[in-house]
């Protein structure tokens, strides 16, 4: 109309925001902690998208990673252990205009929060979930988590972990309505940022497992991946992750993987010999819970009174029983 379209509407936020605008308190993670890199990636995303800080919410549970909201100059909710996801769902359901991010550790997500994790995947609400996986309970000083590798000695498994580690990727890919699953490593800042950005633009629940070193308890757990780039399998695709020229030179073990192919995604996720990096699966067309179940209009006081009166009339001593019955069709 008039040679104009909605793209001609100029809405300028007068305040250009830099990374500083998204920085909360100084991070108190240990120097060398992988959480720092994830924090920077999240702040870069907010800066590059120029998200208004007051329209962002970072929700967390308990653990080192759960300190995340404190270090973001946005709204945040440092919640209960394992309960980050239901909190985030509540926020999103009532304020669909907000950008909701969730930060959980491996213990938070895969242990005490497992039930919420599974059902949040199923509800597919638009959330970006970053699972900081350092394979250990770091905040409480070195206890085995569900993703601790078999045989690793911790305070709770002095003889070495008894069980094979859980694979969060295969679990997530097996849940009904799964719509976005990715795996990245915090020491690959470019890839980390790219995947978080794509997760942010995903139309549904995005689950990102981020391999992260704990400088105190698992400093060398990923050393084979750091020193030998060939141990990382880079999943590249036009619709998925794309490596820069520099990264392509460094990481030569690649596979062209279409994120729409869930069967191949599951096969890749199950591999023990190599660690996949990139977007394993994405489907933009899974229905979202907050779109299906919209909070409806509240009935007016008058309407409520009418319904209540007709209900009471059924039991009223002097009421005309038949006419009350007729009215009470609610």
């Amino acid at each position: 109309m008039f040679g104009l379209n909605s793209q001609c509407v100029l809405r300028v936020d007068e305040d250009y925001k830099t990374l500083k605008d998204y920085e909360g308190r100084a991070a108190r993670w240990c120097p060398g902690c992988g959480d720092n890199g994830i924090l920077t990636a999240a702040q870069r995303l907010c800066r590059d998208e120029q998200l208004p800080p007051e329209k962002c919410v970072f929700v967390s549970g308990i653990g080192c990673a759960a300190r995340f909201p404190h270090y973001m100059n946005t709204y945040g909710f440092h919640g209960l252990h394992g309960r980050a996801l239901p909190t985030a769902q509540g926020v999103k359901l009532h304020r669909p205009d907000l950008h909701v991010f969730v930060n959980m550790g491996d213990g938070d997500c895969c242990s005490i929060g497992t039930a919420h994790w599974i059902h949040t995947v199923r509800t597919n609400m638009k959330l970006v979930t970053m699972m900081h996986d350092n394979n250990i309970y770091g905040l409480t000083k070195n206890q085995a988590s569900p993703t601790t590798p078999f045989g690793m000695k911790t305070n709770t498994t002095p003889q070495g972990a008894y069980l094979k580690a859980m694979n969060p990727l295969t679990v997530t890919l097996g849940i009904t309505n799964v719509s976005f699953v990715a795996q990245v490593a915090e020491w690959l800042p470019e890839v980390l940022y790219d995947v978080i950005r794509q997760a942010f633009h995903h139309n549904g629940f995005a689950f990102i497992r981020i391999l992260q070193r704990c400088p105190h308890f698992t400093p060398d757990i990923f050393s084979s991946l750091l020193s030998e780039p060939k141990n990382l399998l880079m999943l590249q695709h036009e619709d998925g992750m794309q490596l820069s020229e520099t990264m392509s030179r460094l990481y030569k073990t690649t596979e062209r993987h279409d994120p729409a192919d869930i069967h191949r995604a599951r096969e890749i996720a199950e591999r023990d010999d190599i660690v996949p990096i990139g977007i394993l699966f994405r489907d933009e067309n899974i229905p979202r819970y907050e779109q299906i179940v919209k909070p409806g209009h509240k009935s007016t006081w008058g309407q409520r009174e009418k319904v209540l009166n007709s209900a009471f009339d059924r039991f009223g001593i002097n009421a005309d029983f038949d006419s009350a019955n007729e009215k009470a069709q609610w």
Partner: protein
Amino acid sequence: MNDIDSMELDEPTGIESVSQTTESGTTATLEDNLLQLASGDLPHEPSPAAEDAAKPDAQEQAGIRRELFNFFLFGIRSQAPGVSTGPNSLVPALLHRYRDLKNIRHDYPFCLEGREASAAVRSLSNIIDELADNVSDEGDSGARLRQHIHSIEPEIRELAYRERSAGLLGLWDRAAKNLLAKSNLSQEKKDLLRDNLAATRRSLTDSEMIACAPDSAQRLLAGLARIHWRERTNNLREEIDSVQQQLTDLLSIDFESSEDGLKPDHLRQATADDEEIDFDAMSSILKASHLDHQLPEGRKKRIRTALDTLQKAGPLFESELEDPDTLQASPLGVDTLFDNAAAAIEAYNARMEMVVDFFRAMAIAKLEIENRYREEAHDDYFGRFDVKYLDEHELTFCPPVLMSVRCSEIVEEDLNTLLTLLTSRLPVKVLLQVDELFVRETTSERSDITVNWPARLAGMAMATANPYVMQSPVSHLRPLQKGFLDGLDFHGPALFSVYVGKEEHRSGLPVYFDAGAAMEARVFPLFSFAPGNGRTLAERLDVLGNSQCDRDWPSETFTYRNAEEAETTLDQQFTPADFLLNNRLFVDQFWRLEPGGRHDDLMPLQDYLILRTEESEDRIPYILGVDEDSCIHPLVVTRNIVALARDCADSWRQLREFGGVRNSFAIKQVAEEKTRLEAEKAREVVAIKENYRLQMDQDVGKLTERIVQRIAHQLLLRGEAPAIAFDQAPSATPASAPVPAAPTDPAAAEAAPEQAAPAGEEEEDEEEDEEDEGIGALDDPYIDTPLCTSCDDCTTLYPQLFAYDDNKQAIISDLDAGTFRDLVIAAEKCPVRIIHPGKPRSRDEPNLDDLIKRAAPFN
């Protein structure tokens, strides 16, 4: 949660739509200052709670139907329950999203700049974009500056619309002040905004900004005419100066050798006042030798007259007026707008007379300069010299006369003169400002809406095939600019019919949308008719500037929230009813229905208009309007509006056909040609089939004959091996085909390239290794910044030496602030091993050998 409590909660302005941008998946880089409308802004249907209030029963329904028909047929409105009156600041559904004009980037306000007419119009958005593009800094500060530049645009636009015309710099200052006053930013950020805006302002030049208003068209025409005329006469002005100079030279040389010129006093003035020269003696010597070379009196007189004429004609070719703001400038000013045909013709005649005198003087001057003027031949010629003696090129130097009339002020005699003008050859350029498209004709029995016929003068003028004609609403600046310039270029008369609307008739929408709506609704289509472009209608007429030309009404998707709050879309067409909704004169032709007043016989006008008369008898048409609270209301329209819509559709279809879009003659001809070609092809197919059948029969016959012959031959030979070969098919002689020379050992040949390939790869690898070594062997320390994980190790350890960049990734901030030892320790500490200490810069550091050894693995 204490950390979060302290954060700044000030809400910046204009943020409402950002969340929706990301929902829809667009990346919010700086370009995305152009954002999608937030879905929160979507218009909505009234909530069902209100609808529950009263469901009319069958009897009430019949009553409502009767009321609606009374309104539709006779315009009679009753105060029936559930039905309210008056559109009350309703706008057509499709225009609701554009209510906030200041945030909409369009061609207004604009300014006129430069000396090239075709590039003279610069809109505010162009200026702002250019400023933003000129920011060279790609980092955060550059992005912030661009954002600040963009943020002032809506403010300037709002001010420009309020004041209609003001200088850009003045507007900029006030807009910056407003922006800062309403900003909720911290003082530090406000200062930055102020500084950025002040710095940007310095690169601007002051020009008058013209907003979209009823007088914009005439200001644009006057401004363009001035620039256009200056451009056209540029060379001529230089020529006049040169001729004047040469004529003056002739006269002064003559004077110098005249008796007066040779007087001692003049000689003293003409040379240095030197006591040593005896000017009396000099005078007497010169007089003796020079007096014979005097110009004849006749020639001198001619030269003087020519000079006078050139002098007088000067203002005609001067483009700069003393006060460009006044439209009532000198009658010679090319941008003077006359308000009646008689004055325009008078001005034309006066100017033409001057132009004739001017070219006569020029011709005489040139002859005189070359001393080729022969009185016996030229006196008669120049004595008869008039307009007929001017050639086509010279005629273009008669400045066009501009005329501006308002449609509502035109009287019948004016129209006659106007039509005479338009059918003449005079370069009179008429701006017809159409302010009333339709008028009410009310008698005691009925009230009709009729077309104000001067509004359709453009169509009539086009029919005469003589003048240049352009019709456009004032909102469409680019077609206006092109039309004005083409019309000014055209040697004959031109008519610019521009819809500007009438201030007192407009209700909710600003001029820009009112005018735009006139075009979209097909009541005032855009077209240009340029007789100079060629001889055919296809070359002359252009209607393609209208939107969706192949349709009766342009349509667009209308998105809204229905009563159940679900986002819904509708294909909504823009009809004359939508246009008239903004006109106070026709407010009684719309009836806003409340939910209780709905009826099943109601139907959207766009669907109603395509029904046949008998089908539409039981239906009542309505359009959708949206009020200021974004609530959607159906508006029943009267049959007057329906008749007017049908009339507009008819005239649009006719214009479209003239313009070559869905031309019925062409369609008919194409159909006939198609039928003819199909019939021809069908005949050809039949003939081919017949030929094929005949050929087949023949071949089968021949083949049968040959088979029989062969069998007979075989039978005659008896006992010889049968060698039936009916024909020498190519497949029968594979052995004779030339066989390419096969490699002696194919396996080896295949293996060879394979062997070669890895060798090549190895070489490449070696090269890469060498390259890597090359990088690693650098003497200066460096960091692989893109690989930094922001772990804070190095920045905590040596905050003077290391710092973060805009992306919070480590860089060496000051190499002098640390030692080689510091670099080596940081490299050892870095968990991702991206710090490369290089070689020591100073040989004075203790334990240097040990440090170099420790640094080696990181280099």
